[in-house]
C-alpha cells in the first residue's frame, strides 16, 4: 500500500496555506487525485513533483523535532552547575582569570585553554567589571565548546584584584558565564545582571557566604 498524502499534509510540507494548495489542485498545477471525496497524492509522486519544481519539502509535523538549543532553565541551576569556589588568588586580571578557569567544571583540558583565551580577548575590548567589586567575565560569543547547558561559576577571591572596573574598584567576586549558544548566553547575562542590581543581594554576595546559603538566598529572590 503506497503512502498517500492528503491536502493538509502536502500544505504543511510545502509550508503554504491550504487555500493556495486547493487552488493549485484546481488549476492542475499539482497532480493530486480525488479519491473517496478527498484529494490525495502518492508520497513518491509528491516528492518527484517537488523536486522537479525545485520546491523545498519541510519536515513533517508528525515527529516533534528535537530542539537544537536547550531551553533556559534559570539562574539558579546554572549557578549549581557552574559551582562556587572560595579563596582563589591572583594579583592581576590574567592570573585571576587563569585561576578561575582552572576551577570551572564540565570542561575538557583543551577547552580550558580556549575559554581562557576568549575571556581575555573579551576583557581586552572592555572590562567586564560591573562595579561594586563584582565582575562577570564571559566570552564574546559562543566559544565553540561542547557545553549543553549554560553555567555560572562563582569565584571568591582572597584579596581584591585590580580589574579596570567601571567604578575603578578592585574586584573580589567573579562570576564566569559560559554557555553553548549565543542566545542562551545573552539571556543568562541579562538575568544575572538583573539580580546584581539588587543592592542587598549584592552586599550579601560580597560577604562570600557559604555556597548553600547563597543558593538559598537566590532561590528566595526568585
Amino acid at each position, binding site marked *: 500500500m503506497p503512502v498517500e498524502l492528503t491536502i493538509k499534509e502536502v500544505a504543511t510540507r510545502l509550508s503554504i496555506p491550504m487555500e493556495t494548495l486547493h487552488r493549485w489542485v484546481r*488549476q*492542475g498545477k499539482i497532480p493530486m487525485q480525488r479519491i473517496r471525496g478527498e484529494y490525495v497524492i502518492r508520497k513518491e509522486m509528491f516528492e518527484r513533483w517537488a523536486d522537479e*519544481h525545485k520546491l523545498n519539502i519541510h519536515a513533517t509535523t508528525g515527529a516533534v523535532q528535537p530542539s537544537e538549543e536547550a531551553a533556559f532553565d534559570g539562574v539558579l541551576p546554572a549557578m549549581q552547575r557552574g559551582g562556587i569556589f572560595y579563596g582563589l588568588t591572583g594579583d592581576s586580571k590574567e592570573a585571576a582569570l587563569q585561576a578561575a578557569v582552572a576551577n570551572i567544571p564540565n570542561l575538557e583540558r583543551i577547552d580550558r585553554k580556549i575559554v581562557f583565551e576568549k575571556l581575555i580577548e573579551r576583557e581586552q575590548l572592555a572590562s567586564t567589571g560591573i562595579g561594586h567589586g563584582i565582575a562577570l567575565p564571559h566570552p564574546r560569543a559562543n566559544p565553540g565548546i561542547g557545553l549543553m547547558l549554560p553555567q555560572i561559576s562563582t569565584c571568591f577571591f582572597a584579596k581584591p584584584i585590580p580589574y579596570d572596573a567601571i567604578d575603578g574598584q578592585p574586584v573580589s567576586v567573579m562570576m564566569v558565564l559560559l554557555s553553548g549558544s549565543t542566545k542562551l548566553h545573552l539571556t543568562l547575562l541579562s538575568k544575572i545582571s538583573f539580580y546584581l542590581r539588587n543592592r542587598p543581594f549584592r552586599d550579601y554576595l560580597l560577604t562570600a557566604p557559604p555556597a548553600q546559603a547563597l543558593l538559598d538566598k537566590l532561590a528566595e529572590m526568585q
Partner: protein
Amino acid sequence: MLKAARRKWAVFRSDDRLIVIAMAGLVGACSGLAAVALNRSLHFMGTALHTFHHHWWGVVLPAVGATLSAIFLNVLLKERAGHGVPEVVYAVSRYGGLLRFRSSYSRLVSSCLTIGSGGSAGPEAPVVISGAALGSNIAKFFSLKERQRITLVGCGAAGAIASIFNAPITGLVFTVEVILGEWRSFNIIPIAIAAVAGTEVSRLLQGNQIVFPRQHYTIGLPDIAASFGVVIVATVVSVVLGRMLKGMHGVAMRTHIPPLVRPAVGGLAVGLLGIYLPFVLGEGYLSVQQMIQGTFSQGLLLAILVMAAKMLATALTLGWGGSGGIFAPSLMIGSLVGLVYHRFLSWIMPTAILSNEGCFALLGMAGLLSGMLQAPLTGIFLVVEITGGYDVILPLIIVSALTSTFCYYIEPASYYLRDLIERGQFLRPGTDARVLSDLAVRELVKEVPTLLRGDMLLREFLTILEQSKEHLFPVVDPHSGAYQGMIFVDRIRPFLFDRQMYGVLMIEQLMESNVPTVAPDDELSEVLSLMEHEDLEALPVVENRRFVGLLSKSTLLDHYRKELIVQAGN
C-alpha cells in the same frame, strides 16, 4: 476484472498529458465541424441572397441581417459580448478557460446573419470562440483541471482556424501566439493534434481545396527592396483601421439610438456603400482570390477607393454592433494594400522588374494581419499555407516582422487584446501580472498573535514587547473589537526609553491610525503599489472593521516565488 480496468483508468487519468491528447482530437474535430458549418451556411446565404443585392431594396439587407444577429445574441441568448477573441483570452488567463456553453453556437449564428446578409466582417473570430467554448465544455464534462481545460480551449481555437483555412500550422501558431501566449510542449502537442483533426474534418467535408490556389512567383532582389515599402503602407493602414474601428464604436456608443437598432444603422450604411462598390460586402474572400490571381481588373484609383470603402464598411459593421471578426476584412484590405502599392510602383517606375501584383497582394495581406493582430508568425504561416507555396517566404518574413514591430510602437495593443490591456486584464502565463492575479490577499495574510488594546498603558505594552518577536502591532478598540491603528515599534522608539512616559502614554496615543488598510478581496497588484507608495513593509488586512492579519512583503516574496515556480512548470 472491473477493478483492474478501473485501476488502469486511474493511471490514465493521472497522466494529464495522455488524456489531454486524447481529448484534443475530439475537440479539434468538433470545432472543425463548427467552422465548416459556418463556412457552408455563408456560402448558402451568399448564393441565396446574391440576386437580391441587385434590387434597390437590397440596400436594407445588411441592416436586417445585423439587427437579427443582434437580437439573437442579446435578446435570445443574452450573450452580451463582443466578437469573442478577447473573451477567450480573458477566460484563459483568469478563470482557467471557463466559457459558457451558449458561446459555442451563438457567434456562429449571429455572424452568419451579419456576414451572409452583406455585413463586412470575418467569420474567424466567431469560429474561434465557438471552438474554444466547445473545448471548454468538453473539458468541463470530463471534469478536467484548469490547466488541461486551457489546453483544450486552445485546441478548439486551433481546430477552428485550421478548418476554416484548411491550414493546420496556422491554427497551431494562431492559438499559441494570440490565445495562449505560451509555447510549451504540454500545450503544443495536443493543439497540433487538434489542428490536424480540424483540418481533416474540413477536407473530408469540403474536399482538400486550398483557399487561394497556388501561383508561381519569382522573387528577385527588387521585390525584397520593394517589400519595405509594403511595410510602411501596411503599418499606416493597420493603424488607421484600428483607430477607425475604435472611433466608430465610440460614435455608436455616444448616440442615443437604442442598442438593438444600432446594428441596423451600421448595416444600412454598409448597404448604401454596397450599391456602388459591391466588393465591400461580405467577408471578401472572392476579391482576395481575384487579387492573388492577378485578375482584379479595376484601376489604381478605383482600387484605392475600394480599400477605403472596405475599411469604412468594416468599421461600420463592427463598430455599430454587427457580429464578426476582423480577420477576413484584414486579409482583403491587406491584399488591396499590396495591389495598390504594386500598381503605384509600376506607374512611377515602369521599368522596374517586379514580381506580379498577386505576390504583392500576399505581402500586403501578411502585413495587415501582422499589424492588426500583432501576431507576425500567424501572418507568415497563413499566407504560406493558403497559397501552398514557399516562393514568397523571404519578403513575407520581412513584411510580417517589421509591420508588427512598427504597429507595436504606434499602438501597443492589438485589436484583439486592446480591451483586455485597457482593463489591466492581459495576463500572460509566467508574467508578474499573472502571478499577482493568481495569488489572493487571503492566501498571504499572516495572523498576528498579539492584539493591543487601545487603552493599554505603555508600561503594559513594554512587557508584551519584551516577550514578542514582532515589530508591528495592531490596535483594536477594547469594547467593540474594531481595528483602530498600528503600532510601529521603530517609530515610537523615543518613548520606549523614556521611563517617565511609561505610566502616562496610552497605546491609542502612540498608534498610527492613518495606515492604509487592505481588504481580503483586494487585488494584489493594487496592494503592492500601495505598499510601495506608502513605503511600508507590511499592511494591516481589515475586514468589516475587524483586524484579520498582516500582509507583509516577506510572506509575499516567499509565496510569489513558489507561485512563479509552479506556474512556469519544470
